[in-house]
């Protein structure tokens, strides 16, 4: 039996070159499905990674009760002082987060450039922040430093340039990196500078570094203090929630589009395999007349379909890796209402997912024609001209 399968499959593959063009239908069709699925999902994964990787288990945000983003939150000076005194809290950075309308590079339409005013503790608790060009801003001045992705995406975010903000203008003195995290899309300055520019006496939120084992008790302390009216949200939770909406939309979009395309690809594969079987109907009938069993014929057709599908899958997955891995894009993060730049992440998991899709499509597209191949009445086929 194995010998028969091998022989029939060998016949099939020897004749593929005569059917090269129509075999390409399967390869190209499935490659298209896989590359679209993988690249769109890579966008979602990259977006999520940018937000989630920035989170650390020993940091938390203190926001106004009910707020789920820094932008909509507000914390006053007194509350900030109370939180600083809590035991288990190592450092507190009172921060002010806002956006400014700045055009993106190569566009005349403005987008929300995020600005963050920080306190000195904000740097100690985020060791990932590293100045890569220029220098750190001086406290108490109007100087700002810009994340490398903000510099890449926004017009005028250049070293030595002055960025107009409200009625002030802020000299950009340095660029920083943050291990690829979302901070790289932001501009940072002294929180007092921001308060002046925004004419706001309060803060958006407090960034707290704390002893992780005391998380629950801190949570209770903050949330049960009726005077404070604040929420204590660990960063891991905060960023997971922030990325949820947008990355879910991207994934759903990717799966919907890929599924629709997959239907098209299956029709294409069925078409090709049916004609592959019908062109060889005499040959198959002859083999059957010679005593070959049905199974080897079915298996051989399936092997051919799966082989073509797999080539398509690999082509699509590798193609989207080459084209999109590391590609930088930026979009509006609905949760923080600010632009976040991120890199597409074509991970090995996504590539395997694409190849699995290819195999399934090949299986579905090959099965019916394979069964058709053995169901043809041998005598009729042989007798037909």
């Amino acid at each position, binding site marked *: 039996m194995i010998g028969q399968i091998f022989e029939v499959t060998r016949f099939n593959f020897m004749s593929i070159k005569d059917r090269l*063009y*129509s075999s*390409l*239908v399967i390869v*190209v*069709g499935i490659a*298209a499905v896989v*590359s*679209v699925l993988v*690249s*769109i999902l890579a*966008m979602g994964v990259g977006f999520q990674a940018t937000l989630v990787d920035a989170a650390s288990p020993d940091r938390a945000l203190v926001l*106004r*009760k*009910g*707020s*789920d*983003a820094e*932008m*909509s939150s*507000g914390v006053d000076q007194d509350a900030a002082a109370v939180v600083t005194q809590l035991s288990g809290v190592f450092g507190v950075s009172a921060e002010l987060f*806002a*956006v*400014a*309308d700045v055009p*993106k590079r190569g*566009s005349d*339409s*403005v*987008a*929300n450039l995020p600005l963050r005013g920080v306190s000195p503790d904000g740097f100690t608790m985020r060791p990932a922040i590293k100045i890569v060009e220029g220098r750190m801003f001086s406290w108490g001045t109007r100087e700002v430093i810009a994340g490398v992705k903000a510099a890449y995406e926004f017009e005028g975010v250049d070293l030595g340039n002055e960025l107009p*903000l*409200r009625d002030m203008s802020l000299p950009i003195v340095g660029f920083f990196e943050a291990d690829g995290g979302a901070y790289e899309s932001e501009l940072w300055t002294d929180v007092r500078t921001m308060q002046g520019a*925004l*004419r706001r006496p309060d803060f958006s939120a407090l960034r707290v570094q704390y002893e992780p084992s005391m998380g629950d008790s801190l949570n209770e302390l903050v949330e049960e203090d009726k005077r404070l*009216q604040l929420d204590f949200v660990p960063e891991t939770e905060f960023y997971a929630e922030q990325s949820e*909406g947008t990355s879910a*939309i991207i994934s759903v*979009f990717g799966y919907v*589009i890929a599924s*629709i*395309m997959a*239907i*098209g690809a299956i*029709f*294409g594969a*069925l*078409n*090709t395999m*049916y*004609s592959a079987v019908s062109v060889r109907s005499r040959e198959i009938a002859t083999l059957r007349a010679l005593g070959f069993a049905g199974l080897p014929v079915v298996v051989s057709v399936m092997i051919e379909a799966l082989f073509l599908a797999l080539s398509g899958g690999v082509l699509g997955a590798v193609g989207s890796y080459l084209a999109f891995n590391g590609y930088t*894009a*930026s*979009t*509006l993060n*609905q949760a923080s*209402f600010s*632009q976040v730049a991120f890199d597409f992440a074509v991970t090995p998991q996504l590539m395997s997912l694409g190849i699995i899709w290819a195999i399934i499509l090949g299986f579905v597209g090959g099965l019916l024609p394979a069964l058709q191949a053995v169901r043809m009445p041998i005598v009729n086929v042989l007798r037909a001209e």
Partner: protein
Amino acid sequence: MTSFGFLLANLGRKPVRTWLTFFCIIVCFLLFGLLRSVGTAFTAPPNLSGVERLVVSPKYSIIDPLPISHMRQVRSVPGVEAAAHADWFGGNYLDLGLAFPTIPVKPMEYFDLYSEYQIPQAQLEAFENTRTGAVASRGTAERFDWRIGDVIPIVADIYPKMDGSLLWEFELVGIYDRPDQTSGNFEDFYIHYDYFEEAKQHSKGMIGWIAVRVENPDAAAEVASAIDARFENSRDPTRTMTENEYNAQFAQQIGNIGLMVTMILAAVFFSILLLVSNTMFQAFRERLRDLGVLKALGFSDGQVARMIIYEALILTLGGGVVGLLLCYGLLIMVSPILQIYGTFTLDALSLALGLATALVLGVVVSAVPAIRARSAPVVEVLRARA
């Protein structure tokens, strides 16, 4: 047999292949429609309402507030016919997060400005007279199965009440209809400004933006600059744009993702097109012999060639129409869910482009076989083995 009968008989020659090709074309045009709708949603919202309005927003960022006193000054700018203010309430409904935009407005003022919104006069008056009242778009009301008189609870994220509580409850007193293709404003949920202003804890006396109707749409640009000039040196300078520009700005924030998705889909669409045309091309080649027989029976060269072209057109145009219809239905189903991200519709231009593409596809895939069938010498074709 009529020639139409012939066409059908030919299509039925290999029914499996015909149906598969047909479905492939349907999928192709379904995708075409989707990519067009994504493209239009992310570039500029359609302006089919013919309403010319301006939006006065804070100069530096839309998250800044404007003082309510700006209203009086805006109204006094020559060329301004009417003005209404609005704000972004935010808030979460049930566990859905931001399920719809909640906007505090002065009922009479706002619905006068957005005169294309249809609401029964009695409901509008009820809204005006009910401080905790609210009106919903028909889309939102149907989505959550709300009835007039229902109490809608919204948990604030930006605006706690004076007593620190986050729960705001609004009584649904009206449902409005908006024209299909109104630009920008989505399924807004309007609450009463007076109640909002009185009950909110902070930002008293501040509003989000001002919508303006100009007397003469042709002079809109001048009016916009006049408004901005009025506030140029105030503490709260403004930036005034047409409503379309204002909305386009939001859409463009989604940015290059929209463009990229369009590019990916376009590439895919064309690769599928190539595959389909290849399959159809093959199908015709196999039939060259049959066509020779027809010619031998006395069909003219032109008749045979036309028959091939018509047959291809039945497949491509039929598939195109069905695919675009499917897309249309699909968009009607998903657009309420995606409304926060933009207006996803299939406009007339997209439909026309789709049908034109189907027509071109049909002609292209049948051109070569048709020419061959037309010029092939009958004897040679008949002698050749199929």
